């Protein structure tokens, strides 16, 4: 069965329980703390060790009746694309589509080439920095004490390999809901059969439109550029860019035919030139 996430941002309260639950379940170390000043968002982005990220957007708009404030929150995650750039680019076959139709990285096969990183049109997947016992990049003390040493070794061994949301593959095989959706107190993150979720999202958008909310669906249908529909989609109340989502993503492999053709024609042209030069005189 294809499973996925429907993240209804109108229900998000910005509690970051999803971020914490994800880190806890997947035993991902803290990436250190930095104060950004960007509303309540000190996480800033998804990374090799951050698989849920709550965006905070504070908007103040002058209207005829005075000032209108709104505060948008949205929990971002790997989109598990129908046509995934990372999966297509992976030269080792480490990135696969599993039985739940999720895009999954097998860490023992990944060789850390970093090609998936530049092939994701959503900027999701990233390399996990090598664990440096003397460095301060990861706060390993943030991990459970009994498992600290084991995880430290795993980070060392997997240092440099790619990491991203697994859609809690391990939990799903046991019939559990992914950690983020389980922890979400408002059901802003909904997990389930992806077709059922798509229906639910469409209905929700209609309901909200009836209440005068400018609700837009992102990824329920084809996002364009060859990427197709997403298995983790969103209901937004502003343009996608406001949430750092691309309005017009492009699947990288769609650029290959033009590239190979250009390379082949150049090579052919220069080979003919070379043949003429070397044949004469």
């Amino acid at each position, binding site marked *: 069965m294809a499973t996925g996430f429907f993240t209804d941002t109108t229900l998000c309260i910005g509690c970051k329980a999803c971020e914490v639950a994800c880190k806890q379940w997947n035993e991902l170390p803290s990436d250190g703390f930095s104060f950004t000043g960007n509303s309540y968002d000190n996480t800033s982005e998804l990374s090799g060790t951050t698989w849920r990220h709550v965006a905070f957007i504070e908007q103040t708009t002058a209207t005829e009746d005075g000032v209108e404030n709104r505060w948008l929150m949205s929990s971002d995650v790997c989109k598990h694309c129908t046509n995934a750039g990372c999966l297509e680019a992976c030269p080792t076959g480490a990135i696969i589509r599993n039985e739940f139709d999720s895009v999954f990285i097998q860490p023992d096969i990944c*060789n850390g080439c970093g090609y998936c990183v530049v092939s994701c049109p959503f900027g999701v997947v990233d390399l996990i920095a090598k664990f440096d016992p003397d460095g301060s990049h990861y706060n390993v003390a943030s991990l459970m004490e009994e498992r600290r040493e084991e995880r430290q070794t795993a980070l060392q061994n997997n240092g440099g390999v790619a990491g991203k949301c697994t859609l809690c593959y391990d939990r799903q095989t046991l019939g559990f809901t992914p950690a983020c959706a389980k922890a979400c107190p408002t059901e802003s993150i909904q997990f389930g059969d992806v077709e059922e979720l798509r229906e639910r999202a469409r209905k929700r958008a209609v309901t909200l439109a009836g209440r005068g909310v400018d609700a837009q669906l992102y990824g329920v249908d084809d996002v364009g550029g060859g990427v197709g529909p997403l298995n983790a989609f969103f209901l937004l109340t502003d343009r996608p860019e406001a*949430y750092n989502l691309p309005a017009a993503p492009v699947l990288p492999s769609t650029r290959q035919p033009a590239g190979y053709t250009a390379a082949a024609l150049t090579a052919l042209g220069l080979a003919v030139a070379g043949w003429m030069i070397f044949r004469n005189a």
Partner: protein
Amino acid sequence: MLSEFTPDQTVDDRRRPTYYDLPLLKAPHWEWNVVTYLFLGGIMGGLGLIQLLADGRKESERTLKRDARITAFALAAANPAILITHLGRPERFLNMMRIVKFKSPMSLGVWGLVLYSGAAGANMVRELALEGVLPRWLRFIAPGFLTPMQALLGAFTAGYTGVLLSATANPFWGSGKRHIPTASVASGLASACALSSLLCAIEGNTEPLHKLERLEMAAGATELLALVDFRRASGEYGKPFFEGARGKKLRDTTMIAGTLVPMALNLLGSIIKLPKPVDAVRVAVASILTLTGGYVLRESLIEAGKDSARDPRAAFRQPT
């Protein structure tokens, strides 16, 4: 008492174009080793054509053919080692040998490299057997079809490095989906000619020089045209590459010193007959400039890709 908050009425937050100007995309984790890999891959590919073109029946071109094949194999052997310095552990290279994936330029490229190594290795053994360095019977290790095969695989290894970059989600690289592969092939061949010319000059084998130089001029002109047209076609997306300090370096090192100056020097060589030692210096200078330009081209491509990834505006609206 609460002080009344008066927002700046001129700013409409709903029209903010980005999310705190944070990058949407992740920047490539590629450093000098990947730059070197792309650069050497281009030369290696170009040498594939040179070893095909060189006429084995002429003594001077025999030497050129032999040098091209030995250098090509040396580069093919060095490249996996360079890639491993990027991957971190040698066995990680082998992970790419478990599948062939037509959708992944990197997968195809690695197989291209492996097959090229095989062809170049066999052709090199043949040369060494003909030279008498290895037992003479070993010359049969390389059947004739391996010569055009090495050229074909060479064209692929030089070209795929361009497709590898341009077929990504990186807006700048994507904007060069035709230009980057074209420039990669042309620059690879120009650098291969330069390296071959340099070896000829060192060995005092001046006869094939004018042919190599004419081919280098053709490749250099193609590269230059590709870059000039790339600037026009890429527009906003090309800014990290063509403007600022990096743009200046590209213009000065790759386009002027690395292409136009060697072209002028090569032209000079074909017009005026210089005394032998002076001519050797001319060839050496032209070759080193071309090679430097080729390296800087790859370096600029990678570095500009990093800057482009950091610009969320470019990533929101990908070039088509």
